[in-house]
């Protein structure tokens, strides 16, 4: 459907800084989160998890656990074989079997090997402690680059050299090269670009493994009713409808016999979709005839909620001496852990698509190798493949600027895709919708006072202080649609009902978990109908309420879900228009919606309630007219949206300790039309904080035996408010032509852009010591060693 065929919202409420209507209840502790769900007769589930990274299970002794008070069931992976399906994967790539509770081999620390169901959580844990597991250890595979030589051993027999996937993409690779035959790749253009290059930048770069660290851990409550039969399952999932589909199938039910409810959630960040524990809870509820609850504890969250990033890139940039980039080549090795979860192998493939950054790079080629190791599987986390790409590109641009002694802003300006080039198809294959990159760069430089910053930096350096400035220009890929781009469906669903009293109840399949949909979506509908947002309630997060949905992932909710809602709204408006015209004896073209009324300008007016009364008490309706005012719509975007922004970070490195203090952080973002600036700022600020973390402190570390060393917040450092300066933020607005709202999405922007800006700043601070590159996280000791080396 063409975007311009649908009505845009008016504008009274869109653009207003409305406080989130969700917050008063959440702030007062009145939200219903997963652990608040308590059902009569509910039993508690706990898992015995492997403390060995790789090995064969020799024996699981459950005899002591079975005899303990309150214990209803103890089961091993072997007991559950055939009862439970494997943990689902929806990528088009081959993947190994992944049992929810392993019957034979363990492949990461934290993998479930047995479970207990007991009458309370304490009894369940006591029994778990009494289970004795004997494992014959195998060598642990922890180094991705060694792993892809098959060293020290194989994780899965069917995957030679531990390689899960190898894909070559970009220039010279046939468009439909599903075969990925290296012989079919045409290298001529790539080779020519590097042979004729005046400058070549070559750098190995590492994106550390990190933990999504949602403030609320995962959880599930499953209730199976045998007599109907029907499964109701509460779960911390960002995708209730997909969750229902897999859970119903797991129990041999139809989707019509299952309901997934996603209660309030303390963050998802891409890591909360569908896990093995959910299947276990559902199957055991059926087996035991009682509701089953499992709540992940924080230690389990570090070990068993999907990790992210962990990609090593060898990046080569070909350029002219004037700064024009002529080609980019990347070899990427992604350590995806021991198994695949819902989208594990898909996430690193997203990196290729953004390797053009904001630049018109004519030749782009990447080779991606995904490798299994004895670690927790990776999956989506805020940015999902994009932070990796932008980190590689923006570090490379900084290296190029240094090599050419150019202002980093000018190197970027030189290569920008120009406004008249949109829609612009990059050599990496994506079609960017719209952008005015230079305008945004200039806005950022002005907001930062770039020239003064540079002068102050020079003065500080003259005093011997290690002050550095770093810049990044990021692109985000949003919306993930149409369905050709996202095999599981790139659409969203919405419904709008004008109730008998004239108020509106709406539903969206884009299940929110902290994004503020109830506020921002109401603003959109309020303008569409000419009413106040307070007259609208948005419901979501329950498959019995929202008929269909894909979910809140990939910064897509407003773009896709918001538009679906508008589509449903316009159907309702059409019906109201017809009814109002009948009541007022006017022509439909004369009917307007304004100030909470429907009517003719300068003429008769009707309240929404009056129109609704006509619609729902159909005594007066012409014969054959369908009564009621409730409509629904699906909407699939014609293409993806590409918001962008520019960040500038200033750091000072303590020469004595190696600590990098973030002194200023300036950013300008463009996410197209802004419905609620307060919510967008919240997204940007939280995103920036989550991007600063991996630059400076966040890093999951495993030892050579595959033991997680950073298994708690005592060892894994996410940034605290006191670690961050007040962000100086601005916006430009370049609407997307691909949806009637003009929105682009903003959920992941800050995370993508912040990491390279901060790393660039620290490297800049160290540059006078001869430092050219440092991989994050920039722990003080790592930086201190560089300073010592530089001064020696």
């Amino acid at each position, binding site marked *: 459907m063409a975007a311009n065929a649908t009505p845009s919202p008016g504008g009274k409420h869109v653009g207003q800084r409305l406080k989130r209507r969700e917050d008063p209840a959440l702030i007062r502790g009145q939200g219903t989160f997963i652990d608040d769900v308590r059902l009569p007769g509910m039993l508690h589930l*706990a898992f015995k998890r492997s403390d060995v990274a790789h090995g064969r299970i020799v024996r699981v002794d459950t005899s002591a656990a079975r005899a303990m008070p309150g214990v209803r069931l103890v089961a091993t992976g072997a007991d559950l074989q055939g009862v439970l399906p494997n943990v689902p994967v929806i990528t088009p790539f081959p993947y190994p079997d992944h049992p929810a509770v392993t019957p034979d081999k363990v492949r990461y620390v934290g993998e479930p090997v047995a479970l207990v169901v007991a009458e309370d*959580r*304490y009894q*369940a*844990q*006591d029994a778990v*402690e009494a289970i004795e597991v004997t494992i014959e250890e195998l060598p642990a595979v922890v180094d991705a680059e060694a792993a892809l030589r098959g060293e020290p051993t194989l994780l899965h027999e069917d995957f030679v050299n531990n390689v899960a996937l190898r894909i070559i993409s970009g220039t010279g690779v046939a468009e439909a090269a599903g075969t990925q035959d290296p012989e079919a790749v045409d290298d001529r253009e790539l080779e020519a670009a590097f042979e004729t290059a005046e400058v070549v930048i070559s750098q190995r770069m590492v994106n550390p493994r990190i933990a999504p660290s949602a403030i609320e851990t995962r959880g599930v409550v499953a209730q199976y009713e045998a007599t109907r039969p029907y499964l109701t399952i509460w779960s911390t999932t960002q995708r209730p409808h997909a969750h229902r589909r897999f859970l119903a199938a797991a129990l041999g039910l139809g989707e019509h016999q299952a309901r997934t409810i996603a209660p309030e959630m303390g963050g998802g960040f891409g890591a909360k979709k569908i896990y093995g524990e959910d299947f276990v809870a559902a199957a055991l509820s059926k087996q035991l005839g009682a509701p089953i609850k499992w709540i992940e*504890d*924080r*230690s389990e969250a570090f070990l068993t909620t999907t990790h992210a990033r962990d990609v090593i890139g060898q990046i080569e940039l070909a350029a002219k001496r004037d700064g024009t980039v002529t080609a980019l080549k990347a070899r990427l090795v992604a350590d995806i852990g021991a198994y695949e979860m819902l989208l594990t192998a898909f996430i690193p493939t997203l990196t290729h698509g953004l390797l053009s950054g904001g630049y018109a790079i004519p030749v782009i080629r990447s080779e991606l190798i995904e490798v299994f190791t004895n670690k927790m599987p990776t999956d989506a986390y805020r940015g999902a493949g994009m932070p990796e790409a932008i980190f590689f590109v923006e570090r490379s641009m900084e290296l190029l600027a240094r090599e050419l002694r150019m202002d980093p802003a000018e190197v970027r300006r030189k290569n920008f895709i120009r406004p008249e080039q949109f829609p612009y198809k990059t050599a990496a294959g994506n079609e960017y919708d719209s952008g005015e990159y230079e305008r945004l760069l200039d806005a950022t430089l002005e907001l930062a006072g770039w020239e003064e910053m540079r002068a102050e930096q020079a003065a500080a350096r003259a005093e011997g202080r290690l002050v550095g400035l770093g810049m990044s220009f990021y692109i985000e890929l949003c919306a993930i649609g149409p369905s050709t781009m996202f095999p599981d469906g790139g659409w969203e669903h919405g419904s709008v009902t004008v109730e008998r009293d004239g108020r509106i109840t709406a539903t969206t399949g884009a299940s929110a978990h902290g994004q503020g949909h109830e506020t921002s979506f109401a603003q959109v509908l309020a303008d569409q109908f000419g009413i106040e947002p307070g007259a609208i309630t948005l419901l979501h997060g329950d498959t019995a309420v929202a008929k269909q949905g894909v979910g809140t992932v990939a910064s897509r909710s407003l773009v896709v879900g918001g538009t679906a809602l508008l589509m449903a709204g316009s159907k309702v408006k059409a019906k109201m228009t017809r009814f109002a015209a009948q009541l007022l004896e006017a022509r439909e073209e004369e009917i307007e919606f304004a100030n909470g009324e429907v009517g003719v300008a300068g003429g008769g007016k009707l309240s929404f309630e009056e129109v609704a009364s006509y619609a729902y008490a159909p005594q007066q309706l012409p014969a054959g007219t369908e009564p009621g005012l409730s409509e629904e719509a699906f909407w699939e975007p014609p293409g993806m949206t590409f918001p962008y922004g520019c960040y500038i970070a200033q750091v000072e490195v303590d020469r*004595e*300790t190696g*600590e990098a203090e973030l002194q200023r952080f300036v950013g300008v973002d463009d996410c197209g039309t802004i419905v609620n600036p307060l919510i967008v700022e919240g997204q940007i600020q939280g995103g920036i904080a989550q991007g600063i973390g991996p630059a*400076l*402190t966040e890093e999951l*570390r495993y030892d050579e035996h595959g033991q997680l*060393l*950073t298994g708690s*917040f*005592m*060892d*894994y*450092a996410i940034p*605290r408010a006191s*670690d961050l300066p007040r962000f100086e933020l601005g916006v430009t607005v370049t609407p997307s032509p691909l949806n009637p709202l003009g929105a682009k999405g903003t959920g992941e922007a800050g995370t993508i852009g912040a990491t390279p800006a901060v790393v660039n700043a620290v490297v800049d601070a160290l540059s006078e010591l001869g430092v050219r590159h440092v991989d994050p996280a920039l*722990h*003080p*000791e790592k930086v*201190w060693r560089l300073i010592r080396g530089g001064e020696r």
Partner: protein
Amino acid sequence: MIPAAFDYRRAKTIDEALALIGETAEEARFLAGGHSLIPLMKLRFSQPDRLVDIMHVPGLAGIWERNGQVGIGATTRYVELERSRILQDVLPVVAEAAGEIGDPQVRHRGTIGGSLAHADPAADLPAVMVALDAFLDIVGPQGRRRVQAEDFFQGFFTVDLAEGELITEMRMLPRRAAAYAKLHQKASHFALVGVAAALEIEAGNGAGGVCRGARVAVTGLSTHAQRLRGVEASLIGERLAEESIRAAAERAPEGIEEINDDLHGSAEYRREMAKVFAARAIRRAAARA
């Protein structure tokens, strides 16, 4: 992170607390702020059968000046140390160190007595107490006794506290010329290395006065808080200037064995940071003279 079963008792007097601990043959622990003990119990590293809560014992918390000494009750919370007018006035090092502990939640629950009894090798207050030459008043089944902080900390999570004994109060002399400087471990905000310096500087000589007495103690560097005797020796009799402070701080690692070495900081780094933070603590202490 689900603890094993335990019995919880709340004591209303010190005698009752000692009786509740003494009457059971099973493992019993005093509970103050709980910010060390409860996490260990949730990981089942510690599985006491009984907790005796001493947070409701009157008179066990508070800060007072008496007979030229400063006393701090064992269950005084970090936030109370941080905000105490008395400490800010006569012992600013204690307020300063307390303000750098953990995060606001920890500072509102954790207590000085709990921190000293637990003796985490990276805790802040043990170094401050050693530098200030504080006395700990201890009560137990055998009656009352007092021990110097320096002797109290004996090794890795090891202190001079017998079964059933309870710290009731810390006592020390006022000293303005004392300071605490710390390199934060970025996740836990324990000290990667922390140094407390307490100086006696000859009056009347202005900024570059002569150091007549110095007690300098480190935490985070080794198994427990201990004095940096090389630094102290180097400072005494010296006119405090940048050069003499740096020279003294260089001696920080002297005599310290079993240097900590973990993913947050190698032994080499910690040794160097001990020098850096010794210098910072001494400079700040000297500036307060």
